[in-house]
């Protein structure tokens, strides 16, 4: 066993081996002691452990999910009846802008980052990510960005230009409140989190795979996350340019979108959507990855056409760069470019179709067990199909000129985002909860949660197809009785249905929160392998030790864990169980590595990330504050540069030993 075993959170602390040598942590700037706390809030604040960071990403994302959800309910209450009085026009504009921004940038992306941070190292048999401190910095940046974006609520009104903030309406004249400034600078900071996370995870996946795990033996979830990180790597800089242009226009009087100086507002649209469309694949591919893990496990058979699913994921990522102008069919591009982007958008439906076919064929001939995770996965396949098909109907440019900016588009992207991304995320919750917390979420509550969400989702977003085809534009803060029309498809009735649906959805998600509390209090420990799973992350204890694997497993097959538990009986071609999960884990623990030195906690990621909100507030209010923020960042950068990633030997072993660290990593 490692000399120093750092207790994982939540488990009882094993007695320290007696007479451990005194720890003399290295110092930075000659004065600052490096943090060494292994339990309590300090261990969370300065952690660099990918599992703790993954949990913090998840908790932050869940909080913002609730904030975004409340914003959505307020919108639906305003539109439930004609001449709604719940929100006035200005508040309504802020509400839908912040609902979209919170859900996209502060819930789905961080949640995907949370799952990725927690499970990618585990799935590829690594002990941590390539650059642990950058990973911590990424999380604190995300939190800082989220706070800055939402700070606007309390300081004169949040951003009110729609989540894609078209110029000139986002200019200083047309949205005078500070909301857009907070939005711009908050997303810049969150953008840094995505960019650093992307570099981190790509290097981890490419460089730190277990011996024997070739790219085509990697779990599909890790594949999808890698594609997402490449999309992030190249999409975030483009929106950084767009946001800088907008900040210079709003705060320093530049003329980028000032038509009187000859500018063209479509520049913003192009820059935003070149980021925007890869962004929506960034939102959906992690959920594709999750259900590509969940479906085979509960069908008791491998994923159908693994290479096809992987290449179609990569194809979606690649072609995703060539379709951005399908958001701009009605904004006056010439017929040639409209035709080209219309065809490219149709082309991207093909790899998505491949995925849906493969999921269905995975279940074909399987032995289906309907746990809540499996229900959410099947829910994704069905609802995403509906969303994808409604998407194909407006990839046809002429019909898109009838449908764009109406509720039909709102219905489309809620079917693919709620039905797709969020159902995938919930499937991931129920599937990996035992792995993360050692306890299983209650299946009965889970089933109610699933059914209320399915019914609520279809009741809320189904009628929006009808509202859209009846010509109700997006972002209308009020609709009037006079123009609602009679007949079966009038706006009044279906707006009411949608609002009721959103309340059912709220109850459904409320049940999930209750489920979390119930599980946290229950004493029932989850078995080591509750779902008879197939991939590497299940070859660790629940929750995994801080160094994940006692010895890094040598990988021979895709679904390595399954192949260690089962062997094919050559005569009858049925699978014979040869080892239980406990045996597999015990074998790993038997020949554990000696000196496992995990990267040491550090102050600097937190301090560096804390400098950024001050820079943002400074740009908005007073430059000296920005300079002060800049100095904090410079101080933190120096501290970070002078601090080695893994505390030197003297921290771990007695100075005399010349142990050679295995698995320690730079960064």
């Amino acid at each position: 066993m490692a000399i120093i075993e750092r207790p994982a959170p939540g488990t009882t602390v094993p007695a320290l081996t007696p007479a451990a040598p005194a720890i003399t942590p290295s110092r930075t700037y000659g004065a600052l002691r490096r943090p060494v706390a292994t339990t309590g809030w300090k261990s969370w604040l300065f952690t660099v452990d990918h599992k703790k960071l993954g949990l913090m990403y998840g908790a932050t994302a869940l909080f913002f999910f609730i904030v975004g959800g409340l914003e959505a309910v307020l919108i639906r209450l305003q539109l439930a009846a004609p001449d709604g009085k719940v929100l006035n026009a200005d508040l309504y504009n802020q509400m839908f802008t912040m609902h979209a921004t919170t859900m996209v940038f502060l819930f789905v992306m961080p949640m995907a980052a949370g799952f990725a941070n927690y499970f990618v190292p585990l799935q590829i048999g690594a002990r941590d990510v390539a650059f642990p401190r950058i990973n911590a910095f990424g999380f604190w940046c995300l939190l800082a960005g989220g706070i800055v974006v939402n700070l606007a609520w309390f300081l004169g009104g949040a951003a009110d230009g729609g989540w894609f903030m078209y110029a000139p309406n986002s200019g200083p004249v047309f949205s005078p409140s500070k909301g857009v400034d907070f939005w711009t600078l908050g997303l810049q900071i969150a953008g840094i989190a995505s960019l650093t996370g992307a570099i981190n995870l790509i290097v981890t996946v490419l460089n730190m795979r277990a011996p024997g795990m070739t790219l085509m033996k990697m779990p599909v979830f890790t594949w999808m996350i890698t594609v997402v990180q490449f999309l992030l790597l190249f999409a975030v800089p483009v929106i950084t340019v767009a946001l800088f242009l907008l900040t210079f226009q709003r705060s320093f009087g530049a003329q980028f979108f000032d038509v009187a100086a000859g500018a063209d507002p479509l520049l913003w649209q192009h820059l935003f959507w070149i980021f925007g469309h890869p962004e929506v694949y960034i939102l959906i591919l992690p959920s594709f990855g999750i259900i590509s893990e969940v479906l085979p496990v509960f069908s008791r058979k491998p994923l159908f056409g693994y290479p096809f699913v992987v290449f179609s994921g990569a194809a979606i990522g690649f072609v995703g760069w060539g379709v951005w102008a399908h958001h701009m069919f009605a904004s006056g591009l010439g017929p040639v470019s409209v035709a080209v982007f219309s065809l490219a958008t149709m082309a991207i439906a093909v790899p998505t179709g491949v995925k849906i076919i493969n999921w269905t064929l995975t279940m074909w001939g399987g032995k289906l067990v309907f746990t809540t995770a499996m229900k959410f996965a099947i829910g994704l396949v069905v609802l995403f199909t509906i969303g994808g098909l409604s998407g194909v109907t407006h990839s046809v440019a002429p019909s898109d000129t009838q449908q764009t900016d109406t509720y039909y588009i709102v219905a489309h992207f809620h079917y693919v985002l709620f039905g797709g991304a969020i159902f995938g995320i919930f499937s991931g919750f129920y599937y990996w909860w035992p792995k993360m917390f050692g306890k299983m979420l209650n299946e009965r509550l889970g089933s109610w949660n699933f059914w209320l969400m399915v019914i609520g989702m279809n009741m809320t977003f189904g009628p929006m197809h009808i509202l859209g085809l009846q010509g109700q534009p997006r972002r209308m803060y009020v609709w009037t009785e006079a123009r609602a029309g009679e007949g079966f498809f009038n706006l009044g009735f279906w707006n009411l249905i949608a609002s009721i649906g959103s309340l059912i959805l709220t109850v459904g998600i409320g049940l999930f929160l209750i489920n979390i509390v119930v599980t946290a209090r229950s004493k029932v420990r989850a078995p080591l392998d509750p779902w008879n799973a197939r991939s590497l992350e299940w070859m660790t204890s629940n929750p995994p030790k801080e160094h994940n694997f006692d010895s890094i497993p040598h990988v021979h097959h895709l679904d390595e864990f399954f192949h260690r538990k089962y062997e094919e009986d050559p005569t009858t071609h049925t699978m014979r169980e040869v080892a239980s999960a406990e045996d597999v884990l015990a074998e790993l623990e038997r020949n554990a590595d000696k000196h496992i030195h995990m990267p040491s906690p550090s102050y600097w990621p937190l301090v560096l990330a804390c400098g950024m909100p001050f820079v943002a507030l400074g740009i908005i209010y007073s430059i000296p504050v920005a300079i002060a923020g800049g100095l904090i960042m410079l101080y933190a950068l120096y501290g970070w540069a002078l601090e080695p990633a893994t505390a030197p030997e003297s921290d771990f072993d007695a100075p005399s030993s010349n142990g050679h660290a295995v698995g320690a990593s730079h960064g």
Partner: protein
Amino acid sequence: MLRPATVMRLGHHMADTATHEAHVTSTGLSNVKLGMWLFLGSECLLFGGLISTYMLYRGRVSNGPTPEQIYDIPFTSVSSFVLLMSSLTMVLAVAAAHKKDDRGTNLWLTVTALLGATFVGGQVYEFTAFYNEGLGFTTSLFGSSFYTLTGFHGVHVTVGIIMLIALVAINKRSRVPGSKSETVEMIGLYWHFVDIVWIIIFTLVYLIPV
């Protein structure tokens, strides 16, 4: 705050960690190098966005001087030459680092930093001269996009200079020669990238007539 005693121990710690040989990786590239290449890939998109904004707006001058009236090609060519030479000295620094010749590395790093500073000094002078000659940041679309593009590049060069100087300072203290060779190579990659971006910017902004 840096008491001499701790400085010595600091140096000791620096040397200590370098003894780990690079963690064996699946692709053979070290984590830091692969990370730097990915970062440079994303920087291409950043400068791509800025360059396309400039190329779009360079013809729209509602007020203030036009590009060809304001540009002083000879002066900028000299400062561009200086930046190109700094890439040469950077290569020499990386070579010296691989040969574990700390003195040579520090020398060439300092020369690179000074050449870089000359370039930035020239750019600061050019900006102040243009400002006084009527091209403000808010004068015209050409002004806004020119200052943004060249300003972003200037900031990247300045960050490069700070990294070079910091590296020289750290190198002087560490007693194990060649302990920082990989870091020198990383800053070399960054510096060459910033240099190549300037070649593209210089050609598109200054040389192609409006």
